[in-house]
């Protein structure tokens, strides 16, 4: 058995060595879809224009009173709290290598499957997470949104053939997922330190706890025995690949030695902005300059 393992390892090393010596390595990526991208951009532009027009009309009819706002002085500093920096950087490099060698090749193969299969897989997993959203919206005290998640789950599980189709979105019930991390934020927990989670990516201590909570909930509910049954590993892997396929990011595509810092900054500011919207009345700074 050991001999067999070492043969496999030797073969792997030979393959890697062969790769390293080749002057040009070719990776086949999923086809680019420029026409669809252009159509999406056009549709988005029209939607944004309509939204802007609607906002202008709303503002005319009902001018915003003295709504509390975030002022530049209240913006978090440029510094990001990163006490696990060395470990995080190690994890970032590990994730980049894993992504390049394992995750992306599998994801690219998945992306070559026919569109309806991909959307079916995506909708199926998205439908399961509605269970998590229902519970967390309830914990957040946002019952209306919780009811929406229930509605989406019922409609998609039945009319949507077990969640393969997102019928609810067509019935003006678009997806609004939430999770335990957001619940903790709603309860007032700060994101805490930046954390790069192996195999997963950028997160924070709070979001890491949230992630464990989300998975723990689905594990406990165990719909259709999917999370505790024999197929759970396979399903987990399929879910991960589907999620990866929806993240248009490639490690070190910036080529920059500062990429870790850039991603950390962007991730944390995005999270802080999302957090700031959960609390209705942040303090208004008395130093707020006129005209801001």
């Amino acid at each position: 058995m050991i001999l067999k393992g070492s043969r496999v390892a030797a073969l792997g090393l030979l393959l890697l060595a062969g790769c390293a010596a080749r002057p040009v390595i070719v990776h086949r990526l999923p086809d680019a879809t420029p026409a669809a991208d252009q159509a999406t951009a056009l549709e988005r532009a029209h939607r944004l224009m309509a939204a802007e027009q609607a906002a202008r009309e709303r503002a005319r009819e009902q001018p915003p009173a003295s709504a509390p706002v975030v002022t530049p002085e209240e913006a978090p500093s440029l510094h990001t709290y990163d006490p696990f920096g060395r470990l995080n950087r190690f994890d970032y490099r590990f994730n980049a290598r894993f992504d390049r060698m394992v995750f992306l090749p599998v994801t690219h193969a998945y992306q070559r499957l026919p569109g309806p299969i991909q959307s079916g897989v995506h909708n199926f997993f998205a439908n399961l997470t509605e269970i998590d959203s229902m519970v967390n919206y309830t914990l957040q005290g946002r019952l209306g949104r919780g009811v929406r998640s229930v509605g989406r789950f019922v409609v998609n599980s039945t009319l949507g053939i077990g969640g393969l189709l997102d019928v609810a979105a067509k019935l003006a019930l678009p997806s609004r997922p939430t999770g335990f991390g957001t619940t903790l934020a709603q309860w007032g927990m700060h994101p805490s330190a930046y954390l790069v989670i192996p195999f997963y990516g950028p997160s924070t201590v709070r979001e890491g706890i949230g992630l464990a909570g989300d998975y723990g909930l689905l594990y406990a509910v165990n719909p259709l025995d999917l999370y505790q049954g024999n197929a759970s590993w396979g399903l987990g892997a399929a879910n991960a690949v589907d999620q990866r396929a929806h993240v248009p990011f490639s490690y070190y595509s910036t080529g920059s030695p500062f990429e870790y810092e850039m991603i950390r900054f962007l991730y944390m500011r995005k999270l802080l902005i999302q957090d700031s919207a959960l609390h209705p009345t942040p303090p208004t700074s008395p130093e707020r300059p006129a005209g801001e």
Partner: protein
Amino acid sequence: MKCVLAALLLAAIASMSRAQSLETAVAPAASGSLTGLADSAVPGSPTGLADSAALRATVFGPAPEALAPVPQRVPLLELEVRVPWRRPLPPIVWFDARLRAWLSPQPGPAPLVVVIAGTGGSGNSSQAGTLRAVLYGAGYHVLTLPSPTFPGFIAAASRTGVAGDLAQDGRDLYDAIAEILAHLPRGMQVTDLDVIGYSLGGANAAFVKAIDARAGRLHVHRAVLINPPVSLFDSVLRLDELFALALGPGDAGVERFYRRLYAALANLYRASDRVSLDEDFLLGAAASVLKTDREFEASIALSFRIDLVNMFFLGDLYTKAGVVIDPRHPPKVGDSLEQIGIELRSKPFSAYLEQIYLPYYLKARPGSTVSSLRAANRLSIIGTALAQGADYYAQTNRDDLILDAEELAWLEHTFGPRIAVYDHGGHLGNLGERRQVGDLLDMLAGRWHGGGN
């Protein structure tokens, strides 16, 4: 798409964290000016020929309605190229061991167009993607390459580690293209070879063709320069002025701009009904956040400054100049680069020229002077070829911010009937529009006979 990038870039410039005081930030740019570059005035305004509309076009790009038709699907291969002349790779950039290029091959024999990205751009940038789509749709094989100022190119394929020299970058690019062509996927048949580039990549494309005229290895047929600079030094010094004008010198302006941007985004997000800050939101937000000319200028200046941070870091690392990196103790894999990033963020192009570029090239080219190097980085150094070679074409805009009136006149005079000059578009703000693409395809096919206004 461009505005998302702009918003992200604005945020990313601040990624190297913690603000530096104005006093310390200003000092490196103002002191130690051995060559006088930092103080040398460049002709015209810091925004060149750009007006308000041009600034907006530069940041937002063309309206989706104006875009040229593109194909449904474009095959895409990522090539990782190990060039034989690469210098020893510093461990801190271990991920840049190979040059990354993108190839879209046609199923049958076809001419190949090599696309060279602009300053700091990857071969898979949004502009490169736009050009790839329209060229593939017109029946070309397409190979998109990063700019020689892209950190991945500097580490993987530069012979010097000091980016920004048109002749040297041209040679590195030329050999990299030759290396890739020698290892194209089996069965791919190339009937002809053209080179195009946008922004700085346009100047690089011209040099690649000029080098080929002597070396003759690639047989480059046509070259098209899209919104090229005329003088590298003047253009980047103008960008320094733009940065100082829009943000103030040093880092304090960056901090101010970041805080304003953050607050605006947070307030817009609070007012929205969203559960996550996604691309859709950023696209809508960018139009609300950036309003004044000064803000557009700031976003343009910042995005160039991000590119400079990478170039400066690698130049310092390779030349052991000791500006921000201790040559005896260079950063190791896993070390934080935060402090170095903070220092570099406040350094303008003039500091790069004075502290990295000029010391290196004055030594590497005995007998050269600051003036001669400045002249060597003008398109006019290959002006005769550009003027007399029937296969050089150019496209530019009357309101391009990297040009002044004299430079635009030089381009028009030099290219004569082989340049299309559009009234509007700023810098690359009309890349991908029907008219620009139609003219580009006509130029590549050798059937363009004027028509720009």
